[in-house]
């Protein structure tokens, strides 16, 4: 990615809170991000990290009755936070295209494929019905559907999973949007199909120069496709940088733990690394201090910041909390563990960091 590329999306201090029993809890907590033209920005995290919530906040799909979005999402001088429905409908589909995880449930079972793609064109272009039909066939061809006229007349259940996801991509790119949000676009697909879909996304991006926000839990997918990466934990970004910075020099304990728990080892006698404890739920989430601290209890409290902020470890590489400087895995520095926090790693940190 060339950083001189045009800035598409500038997210500043975004909070997205959900109502649970008349209280609002931040699922996205003070997130700032930028997305440029031609950039693939991967948002990584496990379930409950807030990555999908962030995506739906950008495209404004939350039910305003039980969601509160604050902060700024700047797109071309336009703040998407608090935008009226009528204005937002001009942006959705036209400026931002969205691809969902499960293409079967994301397509209307009762509508023909062609009509579902054309629907986007109806609301954003002045094309006649004839022209729309032609454009639908063109799009189907562009996403690698072998027989566009046939597929346009088919229903979603008549297609394979990979073909359906291609159709979803055709819908998302129908108006050549500058921004594409892909929420776990390959999670429901087989690996060979996943490879094809990721290739397609990259090809499409080269053609129309969109910035892609790729949301995924699959570190392999990130390493293969992303230009920049933001790792999320408990609603916050804990590490951010180029894909090389994050994968070749991971700094935050969470990133390092995740990479370590991947089954990549060649020996089957080896135990996989397990992150202690569980991801806290939205309601039970600790709102102060380092949110990841309870899961690395062998790290002394003094290593964490009281109010962890993002630090620039190297140009463009951001890490939350200073604890990364002294972080080690229990089996890496046994002497340090014995001296520092002996036995601490077996019990739960009850007093909180």
């Amino acid at each position, binding site marked *: 990615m060339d950083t001189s590329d045009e800035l598409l999306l500038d997210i500043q201090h975004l909070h997205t809170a959900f109502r649970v029993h008349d209280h609002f809890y931040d699922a996205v907590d003070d997130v700032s991000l930028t997305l440029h033209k031609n950039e693939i920005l991967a948002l990584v995290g496990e379930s409950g990290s807030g990555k999908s919530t962030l995506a739906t906040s950008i495209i404004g799909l939350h039910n305003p009755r039980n969601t509160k979005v604050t902060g700024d999402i700047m797109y071309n001088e336009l703040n998407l936070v608090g935008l009226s429905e009528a204005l937002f409908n001009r942006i959705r589909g036209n400026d931002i295209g969205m691809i969902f995880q499960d293409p079967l449930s994301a397509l209307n079972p009762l509508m023909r494929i062609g009509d579902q793609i054309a629907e986007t064109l109806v609301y954003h272009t002045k094309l006649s019905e004839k022209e729309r039909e032609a454009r639908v066939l063109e799009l189907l061809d562009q996403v690698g559907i072998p027989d566009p006229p046939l597929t346009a007349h088919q229903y979603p259940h008549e297609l394979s999973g990979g073909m359906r996801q291609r159709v979803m991509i055709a819908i998302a790119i129908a108006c050549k949007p500058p921004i594409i949000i892909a929420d776990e676009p390959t999670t429901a697909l087989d690996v*060979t199909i996943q490879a*094809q879909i990721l*290739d397609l996304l990259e090809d499409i991006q080269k053609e129309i120069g969109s910035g892609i926000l790729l949301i995924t*839990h699959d570190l392999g997918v990130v390493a293969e496709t992303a230009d920049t990466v933001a790792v999320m934990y408990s609603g916050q970004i804990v590490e951010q940088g180029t894909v090389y910075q994050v994968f070749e020099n991971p700094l935050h304990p969470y990133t390092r733990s995740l990479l370590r*728990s991947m*089954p990549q*080892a060649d020996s*089957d006698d080896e135990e*996989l*690394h397990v992150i202690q404890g569980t991801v806290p739920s939205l309601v039970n989430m600790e709102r102060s201090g380092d949110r990841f601290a309870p899961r690395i209890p062998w790290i002394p409290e003094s290593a964490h910041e009281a109010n962890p902020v993002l630090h620039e470890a190297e140009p463009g590489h951001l890490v939350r909390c200073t604890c990364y400087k002294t972080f080690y895995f229990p089996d890496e520095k046994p002497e340090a563990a014995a001296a520092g926090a002996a036995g601490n790693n077996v019990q739960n940190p009850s007093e909180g960091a």
Partner: protein
Amino acid sequence: MSLIEIKDLNVHYPIRSGFFNRITDYVYAVDGINFNIEEGETYGLIGESGSGKSTTGKAIVGLEKVTSGQIIYNNQDITDRRTRKKMHYNKDVQMIFQDSMSSLNPRKRIEDIIAEPMRNFESLTDTEERDRVKELLDIVGMPSDSIYKYPHEFSGGQRQRIGVARAVATHPKLIIADEPVSALDLSVQAQVLNFMKKIQKEFDISYLFISHDLGVVKHMCRNLAIMHRGRLVEVGTREDIYNNPQHIYTKRLLAAIPKVNPSGREADKAHRRAVEKEYQEHQEKWYDKDGKVFPLQQISDTHYVALPPDEIAQMKTEVG
């Protein structure tokens, strides 16, 4: 001797059509496969959706009617339901499912869920039973007060551990694990896999590990088979398959796994595209005229590949 031998297993589903709804064709979900699982090992069965891997697993536990072939366990063919019942086969062979939410009865408490298989085969007093359940929960690292709770009160990883506890309740010899960690987050997946290994050592259990995830299978299994279109395309040790894949389908599958190595990604992509190109261009060579996978040929002590006939001839001339 192997713990269980699968011999020429076939599971075919009839397709009915026409006015009289007669059987006009079959879906060859499992189409003549052979493999053995040794005592205490984890055997991997890899395939994409629709490959027949889950059907194979279900046929082994007896959840799917076998069309033909044998499943030899303790010198007996257990494809017949009465034989299974007579020899308490269902006590010895258990199953772990992918979706822990739908495979655990939402209206039953954990105690009853875990105790159910025991109740079918053993007569324990209430206190004995409760002690066993608590012991099992302890093995999978769950607090003993879980017995009073219901499945929805647990996270996905915890539920999958409960599924593991239920599966080991009858001290089985073999557990069929059908995509046991596919629905789980990375860190939780590691936890469940570790527990599966731990239990294997403690109770000397064998696993048939069914998965589409080549990374996980590589970690868990020393021997594995790749399944495609109802047949096995390649069988061998981990080294055979991952370091020396022979069948185009295996190569394609391996090339498609994204690697956690951004600096090598351009090379990986080029390799993947080359394999994909070869697959597209020479696909028909690797399958017979009906699109079926060829029979397996032995190419080393441990390595079997579904090679096309001309390839075999070529290899024979090379050797001879």
